[in-house]
């Protein structure tokens, strides 16, 4: 029996020996926005893979075999953190991760640990819905956060791959310049949006709302992650009308019925805003994301 067992290590050695030629630095991004940011800073030195696509809710993803394979070869795991990926990332890490992407290593990059997190709850109980004890994880929709994160990313990429540090630093300074100009442009454009009353489907938009100074007057979900109920929607109808809400914001992966119902009963416009960039986004996609969102908000705000 033991002779048969010896075959196993022999096969293992056979697989382990042929080391592949030095390839790109591989970034495993949990969400498309992080893959896009990694490409902005990494340029042609990194290849970034996004575990989810733009129509997918990153709360609920299966720890599917393909993702284990991707994590297995990753030099960096770049995610939102704050519990967003808690249903699947730990499983992938446990099964596939190399030691260099374990927590505490430069290759383990959780965005929410580097920016001010909103909505940290005082009480955590499952009867309150799918509450993130660490606060709201959707940090990417405040563009100011992206500069902070890009700077941290540059540090980490340089630490992992010191040979290409000059490239990363150069790319970052280009990005920072462009992005600061973008933010200035958006701020100017969005000045009229200040205090615009909006209803949200899920707490997906808190960072956007905080940045633009919109006024969130209600949420279709009475409790985060629990589908909207009829009685809650009835109450919301009253408050939203009284507050003269201009728009109902939802992501492409939220259910359409509740916001359509509310829009049908009122003069409030139901908007499906892009929540992130596409999985295989080209450079510049992050800018287009904010351009698109602002365009739609402005349109809704002008609507009588």
């Amino acid at each position, binding site marked *: 029996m033991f002779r048969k067992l010896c075959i*196993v290590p022999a096969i293992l050695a056979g697989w382990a020996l042929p080391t592949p030629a030095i390839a790109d630095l591989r970034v495993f991004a949990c969400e498309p926005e992080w893959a896009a940011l990694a490409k902005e800073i990494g340029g042609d030195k990194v290849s970034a893979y996004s575990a989810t696509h733009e129509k997918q809710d990153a709360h609920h993803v299966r720890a599917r075999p393909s993702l284990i394979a991707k994590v297995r070869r990753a030099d960096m795991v770049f995610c939102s953190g704050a519990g967003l990926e808690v249903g699947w990332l730990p499983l992938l890490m446990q099964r596939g991760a190399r030691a260099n992407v374990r927590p505490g290593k430069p290759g383990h990059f959780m965005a929410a640990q580097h920016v001010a997190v909103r909505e940290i709850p005082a009480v955590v109980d499952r009867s309150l819905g799918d509450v993130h004890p660490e606060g709201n994880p959707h940090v990417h929709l405040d563009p100011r956060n992206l500069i902070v994160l890009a700077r941290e990313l540059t540090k980490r990429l340089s630490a992992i791959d010191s040979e290409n540090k000059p490239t990363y630093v150069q790319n970052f300074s280009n990005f920072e310049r462009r992005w600061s100009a973008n933010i200035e442009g958006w701020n100017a454009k969005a000045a009229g949006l200040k205090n615009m009353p909006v209803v949200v489907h899920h707490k997906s938009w808190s960072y956007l709302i905080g940045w633009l100074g919109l006024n969130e007057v209600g949420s279709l979900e009475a409790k985060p992650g629990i589908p909207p109920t009829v009685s809650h929607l009835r109450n919301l109808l009253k408050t939203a009308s009284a507050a003269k809400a201009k728009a109902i914001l939802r992501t492409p992966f939220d259910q359409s019925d509740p916001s359509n119902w509310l829009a049908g009963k009122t003069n409030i416009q139901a908007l499906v805003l892009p929540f992130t960039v596409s999985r295989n986004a080209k450079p510049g996609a992050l800018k287009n994301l904010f351009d698109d969102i602002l365009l739609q908000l402005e349109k809704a705000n002008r609507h009588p």
Partner: protein
Amino acid sequence: MTSRFIRAVAALAVPISVAATPVYAADKQDLNRILGEIQALKKAYENRIATLENKIKSLEQKKAVTGKKATPASAGKSIKDNSFNPSLGIVLNGRASTYSENSSEIAGFGIGEEGERGREGLAIDESEINFSANVDDKFYASSTVAIVREEGEDKVELEEAYLQTLPDAGLPDGLRIKAGRAFWTLGYLNEHHAHADDFADRPLPYRAFLNKAFNDDGVEISYVVPADLFIEFGGGVFRGDDFPAGDSVSGLGAWSAYGRIGGDIGDNQSWRLGAYTLHTDVNGRSTNEGNVNFIGKSNLYAADLRYTWAPTGNAKNSELILQAEYFNRNEEGTYSDSEASTGNVNFDDSSQGWYAQAVYKFAPSWRIGARYSQLLAADTPAGLTGSALDSAGHDPYTMSVMGDWTNSEFGRIRVQYNREELSDGREDNQFILQYIMSIGAHSAHAF
């Protein structure tokens, strides 16, 4: 707290100031003046309280916003796996079942206790208590205790108690060692706890060939290949006490090996395909309430395929899961059935079993599913004719349909109908109503 204190002081101050006023001189004017004073005093205190309350509120808010940034970048904590050390999870599981047939013997097979049909009527199933945590940077440990009703008694069963290396353990990348007692890698369902199953009972091959699940004491090594495709292989050595093994003498009576591959098709479809083998020395395996005994070698070969398709990428809203497993068991040794007084009869033959199922989630909380499972018994040796191991040429089968409602990922209620014919001519129509509730920490389920 400060505001409460001030309120208390105010409440005390008002009656004291009333008492201190000379009441005997109270003509109407005096009284009005005093009342006015009291009102003014009250107002002043209320204003001060409100100011203080606002101050506290704004301080608390400030703390909530800035608090996070001050914490150092440490391991991501979460309520699902690390907030408690160790995290504690409990799964409660109960059912009501009706059967139309008294006998549930599977003709042609020696069936272990856990492979038998569940109790009729109202009953709770296994109540599982799980503790798990990272031991340190190198090891993860988990233990699951199940309280089960067997032979009219509540018994504590140690389902799992294992440790597992973490990526920091210093092993080559992709290599993992798991040691202790665990639901070992063998087919699809074996690795999963029954509460995660899509049906209320395990399919026939699991009942006949694995006594529900193989969780012997042992050690398993596995390796994930660094490749674009998911490729994993591994194997283990085990004590040889758990079904299909039994009564280990050497304490090293079983070994296994497996390989599996998996990947995605487009954005929203995934698959995994695996091949497994388990070889056991059986020094004595008693089944059918102690009547049937097997001594010899038992070799099991299995294959599984799982495919998932979430039309929008969001399995939470709608998803189709197809799953199938095939088992082939070859046994060489002697069987005996004391009830049929067969004595030891030489046996060298194979039997097969398989099942295929489809589960479709058509709304976020609702799923329906269908399953067909079947066993193909070995030819009955002459000496076993008329015993429990005589299939009489019948191939046992079960047809199942189920529907379940999932309120949250922690609670599920299911109805299931089975039509079973486990021995020739004995048709069993079964209705099962089941609940599965989990409280506390609950680690994520694998693919």
